[in-house]
């Protein structure tokens, strides 16, 4: 029994940190159903680092056209976080996206002291892995898309220590998803 227990203990410990196997595919699929705003994978999680780094893949479902064209430039939310102990409509930072002018545009999308601030970042392709980084540096949010020039937005006046809850994919804006929209995300801080 003693030998067996020792063997089990050693084997489990070695197994944990064995590196001969390739890293698992950590992409997680989020689906926003037709007529919905929120994605189906509901996760409650808080940010645990000064930066949020992730890869994202949009597929063909990111293309959509509203009959009321005025809504076409409504920003859909990709990923981000609320700032220290704030609700997300008070202080938050997220990447946002929209299908506009037949291309997939990525934006920095923040609430700063309850005022919305948006800045264009760049364009990405369908079915392509793109790398995103959102960092807190002092009193600014810094947005990186791949190797493009970073985009900076000033933070509101918030506390420093507390809960920074994660904000997951959300469609809209005002109108819900016109069809199922699928996004794959891999957080890799």
């Amino acid at each position, binding site marked *: 029994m003693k030998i067996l227990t020792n063997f089990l203990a050693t084997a489990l410990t070695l197994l*944990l*940190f064995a590196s001969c196997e390739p890293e698992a595919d950590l992409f997680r699929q989020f689906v926003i159903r037709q007529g919905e705003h929120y994605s189906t994978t509901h*996760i409650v999680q808080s940010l*645990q*680092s000064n930066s949020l780094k992730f890869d994202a893949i949009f597929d063909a479902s990111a293309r959509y056209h509203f009959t009321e064209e005025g809504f076409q430039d409504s920003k859909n939310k990709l990923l981000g976080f609320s700032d220290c102990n704030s609700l997300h409509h008070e202080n938050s930072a997220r990447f946002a996206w929209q299908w506009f002018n037949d291309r997939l545009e990525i934006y920095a999308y923040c609430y700063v002291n309850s005022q919305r601030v948006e800045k264009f970042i760049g364009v990405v392709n369908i079915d392509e892995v793109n790398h995103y980084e959102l960092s807190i540096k002092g009193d600014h949010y810094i947005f990186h898309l791949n190797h493009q020039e970073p985009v900076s937005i000033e933070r509101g006046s918030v506390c420093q220590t507390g809960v*920074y809850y994660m904000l997951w994919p959300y469609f809209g804006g005002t109108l819900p998803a016109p069809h199922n929209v699928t996004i794959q995300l891999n*957080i890799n*801080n």
Partner: protein
Amino acid sequence: MKKIFVILFSILSTLASAQDIVMSAGAEKTVTGNQYSGSVMYETKKSWGAGAFYQTGLTPDNGEGYLKNPFYGIALQAPIARSQRISFIGVLRTGLVNEKFLAVVPSLETRIQITPKAGVAVGAGLRSGYPSLSAKLFVRLF
């Protein structure tokens, strides 16, 4: 008032039957990288426990220090199932990451007692929305 006394009495009874200070050192593989940890727990005979922990990732010196996402706080544990040598324990760690981000990390541990005073534990938890795996050595001091 009577209820408070009953609760206090229950807590004191639990503390009175406690017999172990358990120290551990180990590592956790998280989606954000490997972290190395140490903890001190006050543990009852029935494996209920509370204590403190510290863990951090290590990075090459880039001028900003060696530590990556240090995480410290308090840990609470509750027994799920026990035998003489193997036990299953639920652990809840609550603390601060980088001294500013409040984090709550639930995990499950399997402990294997190798000697009466020492053993190993492996566990699975949830960090940053992804599963994490951990392994540690523990020693019962007294």
